[in-house]
């Protein structure tokens, strides 16, 4: 049994172009599935059903007149709620911005509009993207579709669950230290963090500016490639966006990976990795070898410093980026009758959650006079060392492979009491952001509890094509991505079956 909302993006795109299915039918299938399951999963902070229906109708009109805007025309997707969407509430899952409706359009939302995509709504996340489980959302709880008692991973939790639960064909999130790859891994979907600067950050509410990067979630590698192609490319509004041509990311997928050298870093298979996770990833490596790739042992000697380095740089930037939420121009304002200082204090105290406050304090401390050299400056130096670790490793290999996270999805509350334990969820993903490299997570099987395990691939700067090629070869040779969470298997509403 197949329903329209379970189509991969490439399959939906093909059927839309062939006029075998309409965007309205696809969109209604997704909206119905959201209606059916989101009470349990909690992917969405807001479902923009009216907007989606209008956009679907417009896409159908374009397709009917042969005026397709590209492969995403009519494809229903959803956005993490830190993408600025003009006229659509953008909260960053923070009480502080609960009523913030942007008056301008961000670049990702604009490019999706131009690509003819349909926006289903805005997705839950850790507040201001700070977290690894989406438990830090100030507004809603998101559950892992594979086990509703477990976290979906974070910070782009809703982006992962909406794709895993087949509510949206695809979605976008952001990844600052693993915030796309970790939830993709926990939820058994494909998540891709491109090279820093590959996608514009204009209209992405900043957490840590030198690390934040936009990327897609999809059920398939080819779907993720289509989503990336629609938003990648230089943007004059973002000075840090890379001015390099955007390749066709779907070209060459399915080609042989024979002779490709895959680096396996000792440091990423060290203690702390769950046995089942390591077993699945080793099996995946064997599979890649069977496909003709060569496995190469590589070293990333500064890997152990990645977490502390990241938590100094990211929190320092965050402490500055979040200064603007002062209750003066937008957002929550409290205590104004008690004067300016009190207004700042009360507004920020009422608006920000515990983890956001913790990181603002950490970052403020790291930048303070007398501590700057010992913390921030040192962290920047270590960042350079981590980057050169990768440069050296890539002299001997074409991509690097590892587990995405040391464990599978954990239970609610299991790590939220111990920030350090929570921070270690990102131990294998953080270095990629510090080095600005592209990385992705793809499903590589399940642990004994039936929870998805993610295989992480890391590439050279701007070498998303190789990353996608290896991922597609792996996906084509395995069937991990075809298994659905039980939640999806429950009898769906009847109507959308008819079209097939």
């Amino acid at each position, binding site marked *: 049994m197949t329903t329209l909302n379970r189509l991969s993006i490439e399959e939906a795109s093909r059927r839309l172009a062939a006029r075998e299915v309409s965007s309205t039918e696809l969109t209604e299938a997704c909206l119905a599935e959201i209606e059916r399951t989101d009470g349990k999963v909690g992917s969405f902070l807001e479902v923009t059903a009216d907007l989606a229906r209008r956009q679907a109708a417009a896409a159908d009109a374009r397709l009917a007149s042969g005026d397709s805007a590209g492969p995403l025309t009519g494809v229903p997707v959803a956005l993490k709620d*830190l*993408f*600025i969407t003009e006229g659509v509430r*953008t909260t*960053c899952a923070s009480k502080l*911005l609960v009523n*913030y409706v*942007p*008056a*301008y359009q*961000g670049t990702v939302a604009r490019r999706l509009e131009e690509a003819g995509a349909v926006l289903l709504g805005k997705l839950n996340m850790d507040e201001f993207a700070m977290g690894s489980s989406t438990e830090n959302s100030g507004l809603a709880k998101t559950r892992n579709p594979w086990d509703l008692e477990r976290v979906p991973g974070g910070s782009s939790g809703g982006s992962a669950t909406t794709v895993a639960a087949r509510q949206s064909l695809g979605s976008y999130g952001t990844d600052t230290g693993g915030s796309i790859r970790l939830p993709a891994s926990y939820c058994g979907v494909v998540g891709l963090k491109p090279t820093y600067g590959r996608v514009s*950050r*204009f*209209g*992405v*509410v*900043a957490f*840590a*500016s*030198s690390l934040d990067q936009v990327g897609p979630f999809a059920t398939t590698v080819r779907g993720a490639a289509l989503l990336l192609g629609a938003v990648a490319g230089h943007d*004059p*509004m*973002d*000075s*840090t966006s890379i001015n390099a041509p955007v390749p066709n990311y779907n070209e060459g997928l399915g080609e042989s990976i024979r002779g490709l050298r895959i680096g396996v870093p000792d440091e990423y298979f060290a203690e702390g990795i769950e046995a089942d996770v390591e077993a699945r990833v080793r099996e995946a490596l064997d599979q890649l070898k069977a496909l003709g790739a060569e496995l190469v042992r590589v070293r990333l000697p500064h890997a152990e410093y990645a977490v502390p380095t990241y938590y100094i740089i990211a929190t*320092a*930037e965050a*402490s*500055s980026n979040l*200064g*603007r*939420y*002062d209750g*003066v*121009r*937008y957002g929550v304002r409290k205590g104004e009758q008690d004067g*300016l200082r009190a207004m*700042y204090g009360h507004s920020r105290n009422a608006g920000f959650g515990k983890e956001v406050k913790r990181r603002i304090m950490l970052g*403020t401390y790291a*930048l*303070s*006079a007398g501590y*700057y050299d010992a913390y*921030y400056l040192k962290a920047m130096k270590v960042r350079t060392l981590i980057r050169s670790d990768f440069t050296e490793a890539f002299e001997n290999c074409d991509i690097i492979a590892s587990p995405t996270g040391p464990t599978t999805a954990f239970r609610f509350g299991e790590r939220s009491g111990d920030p350090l334990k929570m921070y270690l969820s990102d131990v294998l993903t953080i270095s990629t952001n510090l080095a600005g490299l592209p990385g992705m997570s793809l499903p590589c099987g399940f642990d004994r509890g039936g929870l998805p395990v993610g295989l992480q691939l890391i590439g050279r700067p701007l070498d998303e094509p190789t990353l996608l090629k290896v991922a597609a070869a792996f996906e084509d040779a395995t069937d991990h991505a075809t298994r659905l969470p039980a939640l999806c298997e429950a009898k769906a509403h009847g109507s959308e079956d008819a079209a097939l």
Partner: protein
Amino acid sequence: MSAAPEWILERWEPVIGLEVHAQLRTESKLFCGCSARFGAEPNQHTCPVCTGMPGVLPVLNRRAVEFAVRAALATNCRINPVSRWDRKNYFYPDLPKAYQISQYERPYCEGGEIVVDGEDGPRHVRLTRIHMEEDAGKSIHEDGGEHSLVDLNRSSVPLLEIVSEPDIRSAAEAAAYMRKLRSILRYIEVCDGNMNEGSMRCDANVSLRPLGSDQLGTRAEIKNMNSFRAVESAINFEIARQAELLDEGGRIVQETRLWDADTGETRSMRSKEEAHDYRYFPEPDLLPLEIDAAWIAHVRESMPELPDARRERFERRYGLPPSDAAVLTASKELADYFEAALAKHDNPKGVANWVMGDIIRIANKAAVEAEPDFTDLPIAPAHLGRLVRLIDNGTISGKIAKSVFAKMVGHDEDPAAIVRREGLVQESDEGKIGEAIDGILAQHSDKVAEYRGGKDKLLGFFVGQVMKATGGKANPAVVNRLLKAKLRG
């Protein structure tokens, strides 16, 4: 020009360094496309970027960098091929991002100097650095009102911060430095230099040290001086305050003090301990600023003549005395005016005298408190040139010229037309003047006798009478010559 009292200068040497903020007059702001012009309705020149909305990013205005490079070239600064943007973090309602994008660790230029006319010849004031940064908005506190208002038109307007070494030794020298800096910035057309509109702002670091010492004393930073006069008064007050305190055996506290123009005093704003920790760090949203040799060369080509070069040219080319050349070139607009007048009548000294006298007088009169503005003078330079020509070719006397000048102010009329209409053409006919003289001498035979008896001073009386009789139109030179001849008998 006031100076610190003698009793202070006998024991103490003032040491002063200035930090000047100059607004660059680019069309658009430093990091967004909004207009950077002054004077719009509050919050009209704003967008998501300069109001600090979530998710926005800065994009550098390259024109502002070119203006900054001009300033660096004009002050002989060393331009760093790679400089960096930093964030200066603090909370204030008129700072929408809660940080100002500035240059802290590595400014775009360093070194350089400004040459100021001192009492004992030129003084070289070294510059530590110039850096670029964005301006904050403006908070408006209503008197007795319940609210404060914020106008973000100025938010992200480009600024230069020009930091001098502590090379200045008196309040007068500080004011002269400010005037010279203003002159340079206006010459290169990067800043309009209006202190009262805030497009040029100044903070002064003032300390004293015992005469003969080469150690620096503890300094106070003076803020809120919004005119040249305020800079001078505030520094003089501060010198006296510190000298009195030190003479009483007290200690200077490192602090920030505000100048209050109403009371004529500086008062403590915050101590060093209360100083902000701005938590500077590199701005991750912008790439390092690269200024290569080709870009500098391009800017150099478009550089206008600088004040000192023009002064030298005025001396050499027009044969003007150094003091005249200095006065005329202190303002680019005045120098332009002079040269435009000169284009109509080639008598540099004659034109210079009128520009330095009557033209500066009317500009000063219009200026009241602020610095004189020579941009919109009420007499066209061509008309002034023609006026001097009318004098030089004998059409009118210098005295008549003064009244013609008065009639020219505010009216766009050729002086020759005024002279014709009012019948002011000078009378040089010896016959007619001789007749008038004969009449006067006949009327005042007693005075004639006195003159001939040796009372030479009466010549002025006779000249006056003749001028009066001819309605002021008689050519004074002819009157003088004929009078002397006739009185000699």
